[in-house]
């Protein structure tokens, strides 16, 4: 009885955290769309939403991060995008998740959140371009990739640093303290 109760309690906590993180990720996406971030590379983005995905991967399980990515992408696309942009974002989001999850699994002592974030950001670009290759029927758009990669290193370092700071701050709250379990 007692363990059943604890399990339900943990599931509820996870749902609450996913919902909060998804809301924060959507707001970060809106802020990012509103600030005139004039990049030298057309199509390069800060990727602020990835801060929440990284925090989710730290505190919760892989499948919770997938829920977060799907929620974030659906809501952001409804607010800002089109069906097409949803398709490209979800492809990018899922590939980015796979890469970041794999790197974290490989070992937290080998990669810091900064490396994970850089790889995740670039995987997002690759996922989007791959989806676009299928839709547009040409791989020519991969010409943009090297420029996106260079921009992705800079934005990835920034996002990784922000995620590190956020995780440290959240870790002090009782709700997150109970979730933090070193794997």
């Amino acid at each position, binding site marked *: 009885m007692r363990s059943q109760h604890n399990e339900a309690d943990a599931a509820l906590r996870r749902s609450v955290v996913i919902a909060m993180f998804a809301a924060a990720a959507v707001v970060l996406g809106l802020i990012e*769309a509103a600030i005139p971030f004039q990049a030298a590379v*057309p*199509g390069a983005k800060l990727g602020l939403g990835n801060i929440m995905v990284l925090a989710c991967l730290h505190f919760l399980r892989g499948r919770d991060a997938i829920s977060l990515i799907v929620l974030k992408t659906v809501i952001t696309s409804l607010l*800002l*995008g*089109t069906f*097409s*942009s949803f398709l*490209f974002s979800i492809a990018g989001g899922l590939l980015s998740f796979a890469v970041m999850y794999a*790197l974290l699994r*490989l*070992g937290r*002592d*080998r*990669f*810091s959140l*900064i*490396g994970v974030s*850089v*790889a995740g950001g*670039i995987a997002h670009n690759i996922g*989007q371009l791959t989806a*676009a290759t299928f*839709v*547009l*029927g*040409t791989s*020519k*758009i991969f*010409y*943009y*990739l*090297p*420029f996106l*990669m*260079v921009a*992705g*290193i800079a934005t990835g370092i920034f996002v990784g640093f922000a995620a590190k700071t956020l995780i440290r701050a959240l870790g002090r709250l009782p709700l997150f303290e109970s979730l933090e379990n070193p794997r």
Partner: protein
Amino acid sequence: MKRGDFWLIGIIVLAAAYFMVAYIRQDHAADRYDGKAYAVVTVDGKPFRTIELTESAERYEIQTEFGYNLLEVKDGGIRMLEADCPDDICIEIGEVRKLGETIVCLPNRVMVEIVGDAEEGGETDAVAT
């Protein structure tokens, strides 16, 4: 930052540099081309129309189920003037004129690519080695 991070970033920098060298070489090859250039417009992977890159200013509307775009040809180049997509990346790309250069409006599934003589089936591959 840990050791793995430096390896990871190093590999990404090398990969990006490799692709960029290929890109620049193609760019130089395109510089030597002095024939007529055309812009091939495709929507959702299907040919939409081919536009000759003329010196005189000309505007072309692309109205499809995916959205609205307005292209402008001027001085032998082409650029996206207007688009109803949410991110306007295609407008940011600016003017393109060299062989192999592209403008992509991903949300509206529009792709514009510069090719050589379109009548002969676009000999881009022979030029862009």
